[in-house]
């Protein structure tokens, strides 16, 4: 699928060539042309063209929409958050999503709902209300003690059919990303994966997410089907301060058509936690990249981290080299971290790495290449060999701490 260009009327201004995010437009004989295989039909060029000679490859008309399962009727109302639990307690991302969803709900004149599937609700509904929910739908039963695809999908879809929310937000956790597509497929609706920014206009949610390894961002809409759905990356939004005075409605719901869980959970062992695994909670992280040269030099990083009371992280390159284990990896294919202070030693700052740490409050970069992309994101930095700087820095800080 690609855009089409009316070359006869092209004036050769090249505006479209420079806006194209995938480099699919180019000039031939002073006029724009499109590489059909590269074009992703995003339409970014269309608004740039001063003479309106570019059009989408396929006109999007949906005369059949009314007959479609999941078609948006316009009556759907409210934004829901899946209140994923661990041992009966909502996980962190639930509070993050409730805070953001409450904002979107207020802006669009809807309510912020939370869906709680659990063995025993306890005081969790009150906690969800304190965190921003206006209404909590509670389904209880032994079959919800642990997440399982079958019972969770079934219960969620029954709630959707009964109460018809306009949008559903699910944390992009391991289980959230198991559940989301299952619900979307059953409801015949769209799901936007792993979003990092949200907005709303009318009742239409603007889901923004990284693609191509974080190289580009795409804003996705689901205007014709319902509910609109998205999974949202943890650590993107900040939870609200709980307000125990807040009031809300609690709806206890009985599932009419129960299903059997076809899966049997044979083992569910806690991962042995090392201090390093805590990097997603640490307020201070010292990360190393290929610039540290070898595995032994990570000991210096550990020394600095210890001195400052932080954790040790690494780039994908050093994890691939085996210098440090995967739980320490920061970036697109590792962990997203938001510490107060992030030290990057010998890390050049690929887009994949930046995707995992650029939201840190203060970034301090040490790299011998003054053109390394990490410096564009750094608040402080030193241009120089990380292996020379690191021991000097440790010595200096130790002297200060001991003085």
């Amino acid at each position, binding site marked *: 699928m690609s855009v089409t260009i009316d070359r006869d009327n092209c004036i050769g201004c090249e505006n479209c060539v420079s806006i194209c995010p995938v480099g699919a437009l180019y000039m031939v004989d002073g006029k724009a042309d499109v590489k059909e295989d590269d074009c992703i039909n995003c339409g970014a060029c269309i608004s740039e063209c001063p003479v309106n000679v570019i059009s989408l490859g396929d006109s999007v008309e949906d005369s059949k929409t009314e007959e479609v399962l999941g078609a948006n009727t316009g009556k759907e109302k409210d934004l829901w958050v899946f209140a994923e639990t661990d041992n009966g307690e909502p996980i962190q991302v639930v509070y993050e999503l409730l805070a953001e969803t409450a904002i979107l709900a207020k802006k669009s004149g809807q309510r912020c709902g939370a869906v709680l599937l659990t063995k025993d609700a306890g005081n969790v509904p009150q906690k969800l209300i304190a965190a921003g929910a206006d209404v909590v739908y509670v389904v209880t039963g032994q079959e919800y003690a642990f997440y399982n695809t079958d019972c969770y999908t079934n219960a969620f879809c029954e709630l959707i059919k009964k109460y018809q929310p306009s949008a559903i937000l699910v944390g992009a956790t391991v289980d959230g990303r198991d559940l989301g597509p299952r619900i979307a497929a059953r409801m015949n609706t769209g799901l936007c994966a792993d979003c990092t920014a949200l907005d709303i206009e009318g009742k239409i949610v603007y889901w923004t997410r990284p693609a191509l390894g974080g190289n*580009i961002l795409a804003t996705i809409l689901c205007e014709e089907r319902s509910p609109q759905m998205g999974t949202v990356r943890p650590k993107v939004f900040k939870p609200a301060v709980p307000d125990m005075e807040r009031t809300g409605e609690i709806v206890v719901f009985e599932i009419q058509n129960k299903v059997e869980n076809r899966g049997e959970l044979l083992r569910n062992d806690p991962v042995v936690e090392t201090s390093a695994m805590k990097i997603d909670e640490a307020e201070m992280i010292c990360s190393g990249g290929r610039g540290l040269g070898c595995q032994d030099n990570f000991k210096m990083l550990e020394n600095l981290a210890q001195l400052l009371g932080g954790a040790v992280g690494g780039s994908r390159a050093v994890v691939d080299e085996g210098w440090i284990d995967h739980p320490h990896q920061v970036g697109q294919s590792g962990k997203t971290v938001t510490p107060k202070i992030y030290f990057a030693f010998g890390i050049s700052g690929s887009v994949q790495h930046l995707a995992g740490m650029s939201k840190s409050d203060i970034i301090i970069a040490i790299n011998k290449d003054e053109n390394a992309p990490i410096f564009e994101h750094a608040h402080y930095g030193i241009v120089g060999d990380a292996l020379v700087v690191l021991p000097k820095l440790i010595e200096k800080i130790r002297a200060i701490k001991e003085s």
Partner: protein
Amino acid sequence: MNIIVCVKQVPDTAEIKIDPVTNTLIRDGVQSIMNPYDKYALEMALELKDSMGAKVTVLTMGPPQAMAILKDSIAMGADDVALISDRAFAGSDTLATSQAMVAAVKKVGDFDLILCGKQAIDGDTAQVGPEMAEHLHLPQVTGATKIVIEDGRVLVDRDNETTVQTIAIPLPALVTVARSEKEPRFASIKGKMKARKMEIPTWSAADMNLDVNIIGLKWSPTKVAKVFTPPAPEIISEIFHEEDLQVAVDKLVEKLLAAKIIVR
């Protein structure tokens, strides 16, 4: 045992760079590869074939050049392949893609297990596998790190957020794969020869009895409204560039102390 493996051809996203002047993607010289997670899924299927005997069929949806990864699959040891390719599929989102893939699975017919990579590294959605499982009413486990077939069930190890799990589901089933125990094997000489000679079948929408009105961009619930490169952050930064690195360290620490980033 019949295993279907679903694979996707993707650009090697680790190789993509941004042109600092035009702020657009530099795609020249970026290789197309088999999505790494799909390759782990194929390796898992081939290990089952080695240990208990299985017919491994590999399916991909994409443009004609995606045939390359089907040839790679044959060279690694797959028995059969098909390319699902039709201009009408262009612009498909995950839901529309899952529907086309399900039509292809139905055309293959008999299967006990479908394996997919847990996600593709270009879109990173992790959705097509579970959506296929839903359309086929199959039990699923996502993010497998090990699978064992036992008494008509598949036992799947997976990493959850804070736990390691083993989940058993009855066959037929769909499992998405995070990694294989062994690194994916290299192509054998014999496999490469077989791949070279093999005619790769291409299935169009019509070949799979799909109505062209309910596929592709038009039938996809999600639409891309805007694509943009991430805005450069506006940061006032102090980068020390000194001949003597001790001087740079001293200056940095002084700043960090003043900003209370380091406390005495």
